[in-house]
């Protein structure tokens, strides 16, 4: 544990972190930075890739919103070697997703530096946007207002994986007095970076342990409640059907999902393009069939494909036009899948993906 205090009583935390990222580019410690930033055209900050420190005025890494999973953007950025060093500012769940994508050769962390934060959760876009309109400094307000913190998504309020793993640097918001946060270096890379930026080692945040424990307890409790209720609903076909009853097979959930890495979902390919005769036959057999068909098939298939890798980010729920809490189902079911395979997604790039038998007789090199 190495804490580098970050004192910003005057500037405010957002500005302090922003300056730090600017300096990072300015000093050429990295070639680019991927981070949430507001822009004039969107009412929510979007992941933005910066190379020019002078254009970073909108950077808002702690904004309690995530319109898309930055893991997907990070993967697009590191898919093939570019030789450039990129700083990725990611939420803990986004890092977990990224680790899963590394295992699937969808990206590489070789030239990446990951900065993350104690995650207090994110709001749905609409709520964030409404709250932001009520006055300046939504991020700072959020960090200090338990009331605003209560407006985070169901997924976030039931998530107890809010501390980043596999980051180089964590921005510690838990356990700090307002204006006195700290960067924690988790790797040598992180430590070197912080030191080149002139940060000095300091004391641990006094209340950190305590605050973490308190939040974990609270989240675990609500998580258990949610999972129990969802599991109960899933345990019958009728419950499951009711849950996904108004799904329109738009596949938004799979598009938003950071670990659904297929180029094209199999449900969009000819494998599920049925001729009219077949649809009629389906209806004939049962007398009636709900259209579009293959909805249960879609959700179960997605669960069987990536259940082991679900990082619980909640994006699927956020994007669903039918307001289906897809993530509740995914997280609940996947937790058991992951226990079954004794697998924790996003924990370690070397942890083999279950269901893939890794052969001893690999094509070696």
């Amino acid at each position: 544990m190495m804490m580098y205090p970050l004192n910003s009583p005057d500037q405010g935390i957002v500005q302090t972190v922003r300056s730090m990222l600017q300096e990072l580019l300015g000093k050429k410690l990295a070639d680019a930075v991927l981070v949430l930033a507001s822009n004039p055209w969107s009412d929510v900050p979007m992941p933005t890739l910066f190379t020019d420190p002078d254009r970073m005025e909108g950077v808002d890494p702690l904004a309690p919103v995530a319109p898309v999973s930055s893991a997907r953007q990070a993967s697009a950025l590191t898919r093939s070697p570019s030789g450039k060093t990129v700083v990725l500012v990611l939420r803990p769940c986004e890092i977990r997703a990224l680790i899963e994508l590394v295992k699937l050769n969808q990206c590489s962390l070789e030239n990446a530096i990951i900065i993350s934060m104690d995650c207090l959760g994110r709001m749905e876009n609409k709520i964030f946007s409404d709250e932001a309109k009520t006055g300046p400094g939504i991020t700072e307000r959020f960090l200090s207002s338990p009331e605003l913190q209560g407006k985070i998504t169901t997924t976030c309020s039931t998530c107890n994986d809010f501390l980043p793993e596999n980051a180089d640097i964590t921005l510690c918001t838990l356990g700090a007095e307002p204006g006195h946060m700290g960067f924690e270096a988790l790797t040598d890379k992180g430590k070197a970076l912080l030191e080149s930026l002139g940060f000095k080692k300091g004391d641990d945040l006094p209340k950190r342990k305590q605050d973490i424990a308190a939040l974990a307890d609270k989240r675990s409790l609500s998580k258990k409640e949610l999972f129990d209720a969802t599991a109960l609903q899933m345990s019958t076909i009728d419950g499951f059907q009711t849950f996904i009853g108004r799904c329109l097979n738009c596949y938004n959930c799979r598009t938003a999902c950071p670990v659904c890495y297929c180029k094209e979902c199999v449900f969009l390919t000819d494998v599920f393009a049925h001729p009219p005769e077949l649809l009629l036959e389906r209806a004939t057999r049962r007398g009636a069939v709900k259209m579009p068909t293959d909805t249960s098939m879609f959700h179960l298939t997605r669960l069987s494909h990536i259940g082991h890798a679900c990082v619980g980010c909640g994006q699927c729920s956020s994007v669903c036009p039918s307001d289906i809490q897809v993530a509740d189902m995914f997280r609940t079911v996947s937790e058991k899948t992951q226990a079954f395979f004794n697998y924790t997604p996003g924990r370690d790039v070397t942890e083999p993906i279950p269901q893939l038998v890794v052969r001893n007789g690999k094509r070696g090199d």
Partner: protein
Amino acid sequence: MNIHTVIAGAGISGIRAAFDLAELGHRVVLLDKAPSSGGILSQLDHQFPDNHCGMCTLLPMIDRDKGPQFCLRKGIFHDHVTFIPSAEIVSVKGPAGQLSVVVEKQHTGIDPLKCMACGSCESVCPVSVPDGFNEGYSTRKAVFLPVPHQIPNHRIIDFSVCTRCGECVKACPVSAINLDGEARKLEFNPVNAVILATGSGQYDPAQSDLYGFGVLPNVVTSKGLERIMSSSGPSKGQLFRPSDNKPIKRMAFLQCVGSRNLMENADHCSSVCCMFAVKEAVMACEKSHDDLTVSIFYMDMRTFGRDFQRYKDQAETSHGLRFIRCRVHSVEPCENTDGMKISYVNDKGMYMEETVDLVVLSTGKKTGLTHPDFYQNEGVFALSDTFDFKDIGESLVAADVAAGKAMALGGPPHTPEQRIFDTQRLSKKAMPLLVLCQCGNNLSNDLDLDLIESHLSAMPGAPQILKLEQACGAAGFESIGTALTSSQANRVVIAACNPFLFDHKIKALARDAQLPDGFFKTLDMRSHVTGKTKNEQTQSLLSQIKSTVNSLNLTLPVYREKRTVTPSALVVGGGPAGLSAAFCLASAGIDVDLLDKESQLGGNGIHFSPGPEKNSLDKLLSSVTNHPKIRVHPATCLTRHQGLAGVFTATITTPNAVEQKIPHGAAIVATGGGQAQTLDYCASQHNGILSVFDLAKGLGDKTLNPLDFSKVVMIQCAGTREEPRNYCSRICCTKALLNAIAIKEANPSASIHIFYRDMMSYGESEKIYTRARQAGILFIPFDLHKKPQVAVNNQTIHVTGFDPVLQEDVQLAPDLLVLSTGIVPTDNQIISKIFHINTTQDGFLKEANSKWRPVDSGREGIFVCGLARAPLGFQEAMDEGISAAMRALRILGRPFLETPQVTARVRHSLCSRCQACIPECPYQARYLDEENGKIMVDSVSCQGCGACASLCPNSSIMMGQFEEKGIMDSIEFFLNEACP
């Protein structure tokens, strides 16, 4: 049709030789005296050393579509192999290459073309005799099914027991039975070669009254036990005592029954019985959930195969097998029970008795083998003179050697048939033709074909339907042909009985219609006649038809990759195995680049002392060095190996450090091995302590004089057959025996003690062991926990060993101590990396399958042989070299390699390149083409298992006729049918 080779004996060796030649494009006739193929293996469900089956692994892997794609136990089907059951060669005349071969085919009473396999004949036959397939533990009729799972599955009549009552003739609904036929003579002329793979037969223990076989019902042979335990056996897989069907609690195996017995004139070891017994013991323990005590009474446990020692140790520890070293005196019945009393003298010299429920006699090879009179003819090749028993891998190697000799007699080069495809027709949307055979109205009571017809018209991609009276006759085929020319149909499904009859004809139809063979499917109507209601049967057939038609509709024409083969080979290693491989390939007209890192060829053979081995090596050396097709690269290293089967490139570094690229179609790795070193037994502390190999060399080149030694001690298995080198090196025992005999013969007064664990003088080497004992050499067995102790004090060697017979220590102070240190491979660390092939835990190159693919590496086109693969004798290594060459010729003997029907294909537009599929492939057929950023499938290595396809979440892998969509549709059809 020109027959290249006639092979007698359709056991696995015969089958292998047949496939070898067939894969080279030759036509082969394969026959067997028995009414079925498979030889003894058709009676064994599992074989050592992995207790698995895997017989189907023997099927051709390249150009798979020419062969069958089902369990080999069902029979032999290959475009180039004609199998004739119940037949024998009666005469062979003429010069090699121009032989006239006369075959006598027994009359078996039933016309296979008429028979519908209904079994009516069998049910009425009044005769009942012991069933040979079940070793007499069940009975059969005079008309019977010789092997239950074979197709064609018509019965045959055993005229030796048939009473000619004529009941069966009356019972047969299709008049397929004729009791009065006679054996037919078939002549094949000209034939290039004949291969005899008839084997030697098994010793019959009834000829000795020692163990009560034939008298005591619970004394069985090892083969008998196999049948007793088999699922297709008399008790359907339950392990029961034959006399009373009671469970067995104590079982004893008696080894060497009919082998290693001078009184029976059997001075040989049957080589496989030890492992066979261990395997059966394990199977028996598993069947009875270890509620069974198995004792194996043996003289030496001959675990001389590379992986056998560990197999035995494993069996011993996990099932508590008892191994007792002794010869059993007698087996006597117990009073009032069906048990038996076994008496023996144990290794401490004590008289012992035990009762058991079952005695298993490990019967070996039969003695007194007689050869047919044409045995010596030119162009006739026997698998071996003595037909020794061999394990599966070795049998296949022997078959390859025989096939190699037959091949050397010439024959037409491989000219694969050039197919033309009607691409226009194929590119149109799928138009299926369904042929429904009414089987001369025989099926009208069981299946409602009209109903099928009406249902099908509603399905998507409905087929055009052709109803025929009888599809299988010539007229039937003509109608199918006409229907194909007069329509635009580009897929054909034929529903008929006995679809196997159609195999050849369908290929002809496909050729004429210029459609791929795979676009023709047959399905067996009769298998839906299952004794249920007509409606149920019809529904069941209907859904199968729908599913077949649909899958075929969804099958796209295979893009046929034609990979032009580089017709040359790379052989790495110039020892006995590499030399013989190179020579075999060159004789077949293939250019060979032979690499050796030494400047002199010959490998370990350069140390041979004058004698037959040296002569044959010298001969081989000179043939290789003078062969115009062989380029020898001495003192050269291989640095890189890339490419795919048929189109490899090697990078080599010559002695003057020049890099050179060698394109080739197949590679043979024969990098050899050498003697192991040991630190045990004060090995390096005295110059009177030598290895068995150094002594042999010294005696040979006369640098050592037998007269210098008056007291000699030899210790076998020094530092080996125990972890970490827990394998037998196979040749040390025989070498030690020969050394000892050489010393004793030159210096009769010398005393020679040999400490051994198990004397591995397998096969005919047993004679050497006998000779050594007769020469007065003393043999003292030892256990791992009582190894002899060696100390060197004041320049004297002291050996203390425990003599179990005397039950006391013996102290010896030899002037020569010889250690059998065993064999280790040489360069495998590097070589396995260069070729991307695997090694065993002891560092030997690992073959793809030790039984069925003994010289294939895990990668197609790369073959492993010789000491690099396993400890072997000189002749064995040379044979493996030929075997590897024959395997390589499957590729090199063809102008190009084609993509079979069921092969994985990648839809690159869908693939996310996650590469998860790459390690999933059991044949290393998948790889990432870095340059193009695409996942590629080596269509020659891919065997179409579909493991990659089921793994890929994108469904970007297509599997020919097993497309996902087709399978899911089938599921839907079947379930629709089930709930109408």
